[in-house]
């Protein structure tokens, strides 16, 4: 039986004094992309923040590759995250950004460079390694952010509206490239988006969240 990349059971999410959603059961298999759609305030981003560990779970369990990580620190969960904005580290080159996670894992510099070059190639940025991140366009920066998140081979990648700041044509092209790369890497992905078309184009399954606070 295939072990899910990420699995939540009866997960309750929210903040101290504010419950956002409860009883969330979600399974993402290797190479599977699950899109989450829903109105603002329904808890999509809070769910991602809880799975990654930025916001503590109020109840339930989170498993990554079969390992319970509900109380495990962020850096030990094996969960990657890409935001709406690329958030590239401004003092590092493109290559050093992509190598950041690999270096934290103790990967040798040579191996990290090879992996970085490979990912940049897949994401249509060959030869961009030595560039400053300030030289990149919005779409290029988001590709680098994706390469950086994928480089340490996370079990699951959380995409928090990563294409919403891009124009329609670029968004569609990048979404397809990203989907192909995720499947090639065998990474599970949860993709939060407001765009139903983007969800349908990219995802294997679409999950809808409703506003928990409304009757």
């Amino acid at each position, binding site marked *: 039986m295939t072990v899910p990349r990420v699995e939540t059971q009866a997960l309750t999410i929210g903040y*101290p004094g504010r419950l956002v959603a409860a009883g969330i059961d979600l399974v993402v298999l290797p190479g599977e992309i699950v899109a989450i759609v829903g109105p603002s305030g329904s808890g999509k981003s809070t769910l991602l923040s809880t799975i*990654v*560990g*930025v916001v*503590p779970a109020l109840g339930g369990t989170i498993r990554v590759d079969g390992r319970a990580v509900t109380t495990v*620190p*962020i*850096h*030990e*969960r094996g*969960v*990657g*995250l890409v*935001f709406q*904005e690329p*958030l590239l*580290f*401004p*003092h590092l080159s493109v290559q050093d950004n992509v190598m*950041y*996670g690999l270096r*934290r*894992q103790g990967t040798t510099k040579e191996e990290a460079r090879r992996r970085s070059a490979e990912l940049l190639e897949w994401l249509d940025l060959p030869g961009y390694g030595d560039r*400053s*991140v*300030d030289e990149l366009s919005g779409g290029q920066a988001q590709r680098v952010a994706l390469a*950086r*998140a994928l*480089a*340490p081979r*996370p079990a699951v990648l959380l995409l928090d509206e990563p294409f919403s700041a891009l124009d329609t044509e670029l968004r569609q092209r990048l979404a397809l490239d990203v989907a192909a790369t995720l499947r090639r890497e065998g990474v599970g992905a949860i993709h939060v988006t407001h765009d139903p078309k983007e969800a349908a184009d990219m995802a294997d399954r679409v999950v809808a969240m409703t506003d928990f606070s409304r009757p």
Partner: protein
Amino acid sequence: MPAAFLTVFLAYPLGVLGSHVVDPTGWTRLVAASTWHVVPLALVQASASTILAVAVGLPIANVVSRYGFRGRALAQAAVTVPFVLPTVVVALAFRSLLGPGVPQGFVLVVLAHAYVNLAVVVRIVGSQWAQHDPNFENVARTLGATRWAAFRTVTLPTLRPAIASSASVVFIFSFTSLGIVLLLGDASTRTLESQILRQTSVLLDFPGAAATAVVQLVLVSSVLAAGMLASRRSTRRRMRPVTLRPVPSDPAGRIGVLGTAAITLAIVTAPVAALVVTSFRAAGSWSLAWWTGVTSVDAGTSRIGSPLSALATSLAFAVICAVVACVVGGLAAVAVLTHGRTRVMSLVAIVPLGISSATLGLGTLLAFGRPPIDLRGSGLLVPIAHSLVAVPLVVAVVAPALLGADARPMAVAASLGARPTRAFLTAYGSVLRVVMLASAGLACAVSLGEFGAASFLTRAGSPTVPVQIVRLLSRPGEQSYGVAAVLAVILVILTLSIVLLVDRLGTGRLRPRTAAA
């Protein structure tokens, strides 16, 4: 007019100072070992003070600029207090806090410098940190970085320009310190500033003092330039509107944030509280003796003078300084507005950092304190020197307010037949009233606390309050110490009242009217 004032009272004295070094004997002085032997001591002391201020200031900046909690505004304001207090007051407060048992010297000087300059680090780094998106750290942590590694590899490099900028300012303030070094230091903590004073007032070696002043000017300018370069080497950063984060819910995080705020308040208030207590303690018990004796101590001697008359002298000098600085600085700000020279404004604002108050005092003394131009008897030398320190501050306050004001009423008034001055006042009059009042307050605060230039230029019979405090402390006896503490407390009250007033003016009534369209 501003150019003429600065030429006569700044450029000319500095030129006179430089002329002492240009001649052959001056050059010999400049390269002499006696000119340089204080430099290593001052460098070590200033470096240690800077490291301590940055090390203590960073966690405080993190807490007060990023987290929202009850008492945050108080903690933020409290950090600013030591910076606005006169340095001799801070030195006396430290002596009061630590007691006579703690030996004067390196440790005490470094502690006091870090205390005074905490605000520089917290304000400069804090404003940068507040705009730093915490998701940078979250991303780093998802990539396997521990909390510390994320701070070290992502946050710290982003803050590096601000840290470098604040560190260079703290270094310069510590390197050119005089009041704290005189009151808390020993032979191991001399600065070039104290050396200049010693050469002038003890050794009567004016050429030697001029050479030391030139060395200091060059070193300080170099550090300033390096600081500006380092702070300019910043990559384009993602800035975001400042939104305060909630205090962490986990016990460790909560204790970290609230504990840091509480410790900050304790650190900042302890020396001032000790000073106030000292002013009410005589012969081991509570007493008003020093407060009631403030009018009479040594009133009969010209060496020390009456403490109360020192207060009157300081207040008179503060008023003259405020008038001169507001006229000169205000006109300079108007020139900035009408000529659109915002770069000149930032340059003017930074000039006094490079020219220490002792250098200013010595230059003024050499230029106007002896024939052919001897103004010592006029009582104007001190307020003029204080004005030179205050003018850039006035420009820094007034010019941005004028630049932010809506200029359109000026054109409307002119089209209706108003003369240029009337049209100008129609557009900028209300803003000018507020900022000039704030500027006058700042100039008064500067003048009341200034010690370096005043120590060179004060006449024996009419010292300013900071000079009087140092004179009192140089004498043995509990009475001198107690009365000095009373004067220091009065300065604290005056300075904080002025700063609070200026702050209220700045945040309340002064709202630049920017064009809506």
